[in-house]
């Protein structure tokens, strides 16, 4: 199966129908293992039990950026290769990415209050993630506002690629500016600084959330393909109903 084969929506739907049950089962099992490990993880010597928020905050924060990166690749697929499923992929990913970003902000805020003494601070990391969330909402609004899917696809692709400039800003904001947010402790030169007791549950949860994204994304892409089929058939119906000149 090559990428060209997947360009055919009918083949893509058949593949999705086969893959989804397996993905759902694997995601559920990994989430159960991750949640168990998170519950059993010891308290941190400084942060106490609030370290448990890390096991859901960090995967959501990683995915908030990863989903935008996926959408940026899809945007290239739309603009450069005109892959028929590229816009479908980007449009289906946006609400899921927005949800992960929202959760990263909410869980970060709930972790910040007991550790920093505040729910919110206009520092570089928090502000750049809030901008990412607003960009997701803007993209969703754009897709809804433009009726012609091909025009909406091109405009959304350009906006997505411009928005991708925010990703390195988010990633390196903790190094470039003074922020309340701690610097990277997993994805850093020299390896993770986290103890294995925290690192292993975190990686299992990150894998589980990544699989959750893949599962939801495939299901949402399937819905978008069906929506476009409905639209095409409604156009045929409307044309058939027109009086002939």
């Amino acid at each position, binding site marked *: 199966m090559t990428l060209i084969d997947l360009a055919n929506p009918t083949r893509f739907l058949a593949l999705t129908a086969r893959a989804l049950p397996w993905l759902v089962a694997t995601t559920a099992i990994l989430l159960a293992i991750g949640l168990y490990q998170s519950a059993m993880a010891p308290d941190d010597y400084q942060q*106490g*039990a609030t370290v448990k928020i890390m096991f859901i905050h960090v995967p959501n924060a990683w995915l908030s950026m990863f989903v935008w990166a996926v959408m940026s690749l899809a945007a290239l697929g739309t603009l450069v290769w005109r892959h028929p499923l590229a816009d479908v992929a980007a449009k289906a990913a946006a609400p*899921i990415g927005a949800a992960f970003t*929202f*959760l990263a902000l909410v869980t970060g805020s709930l972790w910040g209050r007991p550790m920093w003494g505040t729910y919110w601070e206009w520092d570089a990391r928090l502000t750049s993630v809030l901008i990412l969330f607003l960009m997701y909402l803007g993209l969703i609004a754009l897709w809804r506002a433009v009726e012609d899917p091909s025009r909406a696809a091109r405009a959304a692709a350009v906006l997505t690629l411009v928005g991708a400039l925010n990703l390195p800003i988010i990633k390196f904001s903790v190094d470039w500016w003074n922020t309340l947010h701690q610097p990277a402790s997993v994805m850093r030169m020299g390896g993770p600084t986290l103890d294995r007791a925290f690192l292993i549950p975190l990686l299992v949860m990150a894998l589980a959330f990544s699989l959750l994204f893949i599962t939801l994304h495939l*299901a949402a892409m399937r*819905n978008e393909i069906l929506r476009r*089929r409905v639209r095409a058939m*409604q156009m045929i*119906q409307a044309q058939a109903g027109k009086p002939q000149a």
Partner: protein
Amino acid sequence: MSLGPYTTFIVTSYLAVLMVVVLLIAWIAIDYRRQKRRLSDLEAKGLVRRSGRK
């Protein structure tokens, strides 16, 4: 497992994630059923997509 004085913050975080993930799953499942129903309604009227014609 004791969460100490931070129970509210930890439990609220996990509940927020659970709620949003459940909403996402429900939205996608409902949307799938809606699109399938609209498609079968149109097919029942005898409409066929151009790429679906034989």
